[in-house]
């Protein structure tokens, strides 16, 4: 393993044995006596590497194998086959030493204890992770600065809002200053302001401490704002691993130009903008949207044509939302054009 490499995953797989549930009342009775077991490959020969200081987005639809991967990488689950070496440890074999070098936040669950004040959870974690009193104080101060958690340190966790709790959870996960942070759906259920705060914080710790972050999410804004690299997993298989930009470049087929015309006299002229692979839509009285295939239509040509045809007050070029791309990948669109 080279020096800058934090995560090195080779053909990692996890199988679960479950049984086929029969339908109906009679089926349920049959289930009690005879079970057809099936093996589900939750994670199927996944390989990737993550270098120090990277922020990698790990995305996929529900049940794709994201959480199972994270659980294996954090030492909670034992892989069925393959190998994962993280921070120089085998997570599932050297779990206790290993987890002292990582931080984990599960978005939908908290590692803070429900009925006790936040600060008490921190103090307990300090003891569990054997953080010195001095380091603890220093880091708490830092977290207070960036996350602004000092106001509710003495509130029981159950009384915190989701956003407040997530900030505390992040602080808790970073209390022992791990070089690597796993985040499972860190912004799930948060409002826009809270999401923004979390993202700012993640950028800050990545910048300041070189903390490597692997995050799973459903919110592609998280990815766009935080990660340069994404990995897409579905049905346990890694479908894409590479720069976000490359994915967009190769897979973003349509672009759109939104423009506002000067006055209603322009309307008739707008209708004359026609080309193959172009779709015109009136957004409101004076605003139009043109969606076009960027392979067939050159963006600059189109802009020139628009400007020559009508008097434009405002013009905006937009990419297809990343959601659309991901949706297409999930739907099984070939990724052949993208180098894996």
């Amino acid at each position, binding site marked *: 393993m080279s020096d800058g490499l934090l995560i090195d995953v080779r053909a990692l797989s996890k199988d679960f044995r479950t049984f086929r549930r029969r339908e109906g009342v009679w089926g349920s009775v049959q289930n009690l006596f005879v079970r057809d077991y099936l093996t589900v490959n939750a994670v199927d020969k996944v390989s990737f590497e993550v270098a120090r200081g990277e922020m990698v987005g790990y995305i996929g639809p529900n049940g794709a194998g994201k959480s199972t991967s994270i659980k294996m990488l954090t030492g909670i689950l034992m892989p069925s086959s393959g190998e994962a070496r993280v921070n120089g440890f085998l997570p599932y074999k050297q779990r206790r030493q290993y987890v002292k070098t990582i931080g984990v936040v599960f978005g939908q669950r908290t590692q803070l204890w429900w*009925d006790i004040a936040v600060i008490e959870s921190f103090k307990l974690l300090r003891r569990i992770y054997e953080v010195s009193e001095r380091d603890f104080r220093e880091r708490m101060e830092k977290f207070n600065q960036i996350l602004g958690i000092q106001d509710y340190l003495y509130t029981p966790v159950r009384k915190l809002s989701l956003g407040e709790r997530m900030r505390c959870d992040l602080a808790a996960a970073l209390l022992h200053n791990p070089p690597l942070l796993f985040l499972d759906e860190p912004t799930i259920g948060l409002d826009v302001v809270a999401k923004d705060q979390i993202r700012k914080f993640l950028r800050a710790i990545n910048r300041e401490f070189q903390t490597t972050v692997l995050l799973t999410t459903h919110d592609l804004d998280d990815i766009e704002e935080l990660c340069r690299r994404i990995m897409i997993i579905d049905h346990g298989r890694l479908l894409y691993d590479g720069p976000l930009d490359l994915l967009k470049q190769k897979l973003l087929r349509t672009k759109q130009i939104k423009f506002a015309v000067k006055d209603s006299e322009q309307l008739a002229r707008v209708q004359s903008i026609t080309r193959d692979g172009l779709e015109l839509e009136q957004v409101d009285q004076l605003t139009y949207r043109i969606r076009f295939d960027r392979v067939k239509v050159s963006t600059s040509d189109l802009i020139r044509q628009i400007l020559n045809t009508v008097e434009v007050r405002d013009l905006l070029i937009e990419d297809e939302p990343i959601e659309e791309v991901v949706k297409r990948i999930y739907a099984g669109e070939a990724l052949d054009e993208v180098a894996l």
Partner: protein
Amino acid sequence: MSLRNSLIVYRKELRDMLRDKRTIRSMVIIPVIAFPLLFWGISKVMTSVMGEAATETAPIMVNGGTNSPKVLAALRKLPGIQLLPYQDDAKQEVSDKKIRAVVEIPNGIDTVATGSQSKQVSIGYYENDVKSEMTRDKLQKFFDDYRDGVARAALIARGMSPEILEPFKVQVKNVAPPAKVSAAIFGGWIPYLIIIFSFTGAMYPAMDLTAGEKERGTLETILSSPVSRTDLVIGKFLMVMTASVVTAVLSLASVGFAGRHMMSGAQQQTMNLSISPSTVIAVAVILLPLTVLFASMLLAVALLAKSYREAQTYVSPLVFVAIAPAIIGALPGVELNWKTALVPILNTSLVSKEVIGGTYHWTTMLMVFGMTCVYAAISLGAAIYMFNREDVLFRT
């Protein structure tokens, strides 16, 4: 295994529990308030039932005796008895609780007939009905006395001393110390109560610390901390055991207090159970491995569940598993032998019963203690094994 980490887990769970109002309610408030109330209620009801029975004028019916006017006259004078005119359905009246007893008096019992067959007075009553039984006792005494009177009069009439009737008296006397006497009745129920309390006290936290944690999703987070699974189980186990012991101690103290202060004097006398501090210590030592068994068994079983509700369906049948041997052990007559000494829970119950009665069979005590320790160790091992199994922790 690291004791330090187990203790951290333990302290965390303890703190969490103490802040959870549900625990405090089930562990402290209910036993402490419920028992005095219960005893007070029972005592009140008993006193009023007994009092009512004692002061009642019991209606009875008498069949026959028309040619024994003296006995009828005496019966009419008997306090607390009211003679109603005889009806043919008198027995039915007794079972309908309209009258307390029906008396059949044969002819001529006022006089002693020589050479003829002994005559028979019969009293019909309602068994196990307090009022009817009290009337029966009253009538039986009346007829016994009356019979003796008739016999005595006959002897005197023939110039003989009535002493002949009673050449000697029989006296029955209890020589066992009162503590042992009440131990025979109640000694079995004390271990029974402790067993039930320590079991129920462990139930709630055991479910909360396993299935509850799964439900809240906090299991993954604790599993991703540098605490080994064994340390985690030990910490949780210590917490469950603490809850179990505290509940048992509080409940017992509450029962003791209630028994002493909430019952009437007469009721207290039948419960004259004096337990020395050494007995308390001995019983506590004997019962300790049992709480280990309970705590670890409950943890292992509750961990199978995915949710608190599911855990309840698994744990409820276990209540019977724990209570059945405890009840059998509490029954008078069930004694400790090498066979019963092997049955978990039952053996502990029986040994405690003996100890409370003041009997110390050291070898059997040691054997029972050892056996329970073995069962407890197996159960704790099972709990640790369960916590190390992925398919149990993350059941789908």
